[in-house]
């Protein structure tokens, strides 16, 4: 085992950039994805027929195909098609549309939207009807019932599953190394190519991922314990999809 390359400032910079990008992608995808998930759940439960059907189809397709295929589809497939759109190279969006980070985040947001959307839909269906009717009886508007009663109660019911989805999201991030985005795995791959070391860089980032997973699990546990009305429950510390 040769870890002498760790003292090289260039490699340190790569690894740091990879780590920051990984966390940044995680944050953007988690926030965007959860917002989309609520929209998907609402569309399936209360949307007009075509919208509900669309949300169902979206969920089925995203959950039924590999994330890697989706990533390639958006980055290479949709990305190439967009290149052909006349005038797009002069538009303000062009730098964004060439950025692998944009496509990585887009793919992950859609993925979280589909997986977490199903979780939130199930939880929203489990909230007793009487509670929502009570809200209406107290004179809350439909929107107020949604964001003061229905959503908070649903999130209480599915919070452990949702935090599990976030761990799964973290573990999906290395996929973006295949579209040349500088994440931890991409940093390790560069170091491997330059130092001809097969295992050491991979083992190092495996360790970093292990530590990040543990820290994130503990942080999310804190969120769960402090969520209003949550009773602490014993559960396994790593989720299954």
């Amino acid at each position, binding site marked *: 085992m040769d870890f002498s390359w760790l003292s090289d400032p260039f490699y340190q910079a790569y690894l740091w950039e990879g780590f920051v990008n990984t966390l940044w992608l995680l944050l953007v995808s988690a926030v965007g994805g959860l917002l989309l998930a609520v929209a998907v759940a609402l569309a399936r439960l209360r949307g007009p027929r075509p919208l509900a059907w669309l949300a169902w189809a979206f969920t089925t397709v995203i959950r039924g*195909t590999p994330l890697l295929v989706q990533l390639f589809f958006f980055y*290479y497939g949709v990305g190439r098609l967009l290149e052909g759109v006349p005038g797009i190279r002069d538009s303000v969006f062009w730098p964004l549309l060439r950025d692998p980070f944009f496509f990585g985040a887009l793919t992950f947001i859609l993925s979280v939207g589909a997986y977490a959307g199903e979780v939130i839909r199930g939880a929203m269906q489990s909230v007793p009807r009487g509670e929502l009717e009570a809200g209406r009886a107290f004179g809350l508007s439909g929107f107020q019932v949604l964001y003061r009663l229905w959503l908070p109660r649903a999130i209480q019911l599915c919070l452990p599953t949702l935090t599990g989805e976030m761990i799964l999201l973290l573990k999906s991030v290395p*996929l973006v190394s295949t579209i040349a985005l500088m994440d931890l795995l991409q940093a390790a791959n560069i170091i491997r190519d330059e130092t001809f070391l097969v295992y050491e860089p991979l083992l190092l980032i495996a360790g970093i991922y292990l530590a990040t*997973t543990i820290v994130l699990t503990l942080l999310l546990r804190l969120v769960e314990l402090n969520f209003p009305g949550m009773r602490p429950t014993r559960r396994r510390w790593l989720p299954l999809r």
Partner: protein
Amino acid sequence: MTAMTPEGLGDWAGPILAGAMTTLQIAVLAYAIGLLLGLLGAGAKLSPWAPLRALATAYSTLIRAVPELLLIILLYYAGAQALDALLARLGIGGAVQITGFATAVGVLAFVQGAYMTEVFRGAILAIPHGQLEAADAYGFSRWTRFHRIVLPGMLPNALPGMSNLWLILIKDTALISVIGFYELFFTIQQAAASSRAYFLFYAAAGVIYLLMTLTSTALFARLERHVRRGQPTEA
């Protein structure tokens, strides 16, 4: 060469179909080995012997805390190296194709086994204790108790988790393409690059994987009805 006609889906149908078959072979073999590893892991986790429990816990915890893609790359190189050394010692070196396939299966099975361990552990723990005691009272041997009571008793509890893991496995086979082994998605990538019809081929890949997962979901639903026969239906 003048004006080449662009390659379409038709030109690549054969290789893509072959790739899909390879993917299915990898998935089925990895699943079978993963089931076995999962049973062993769950058995070890529930064993009264502490070192065995620690070993199984380390296996299932470490594997589940590290991203699959990273594990697959890491284990692929380690596994290929080990297998090459083994084949060279046996005097059948250079069988790269066998090595690639076997490592792909081995790596996916090893990862799958860690997740399966947790599924089986939970399912075994959910078997009512009285049933095991009844088996003991009737003088069942350990093996008879295992395959007449524990296995059929845990199956209904384990099946939803097993079905989930099969779907994850099908999708994880696409990760093998990163290593450069010929399976469905690697073939698709080559088709897309050579025809430059990226949108078309990646959409086609999505449709093929979707067909596989939807069919699997339907089959697992039937299987679950079968193992739950004789159980009281919930009102």
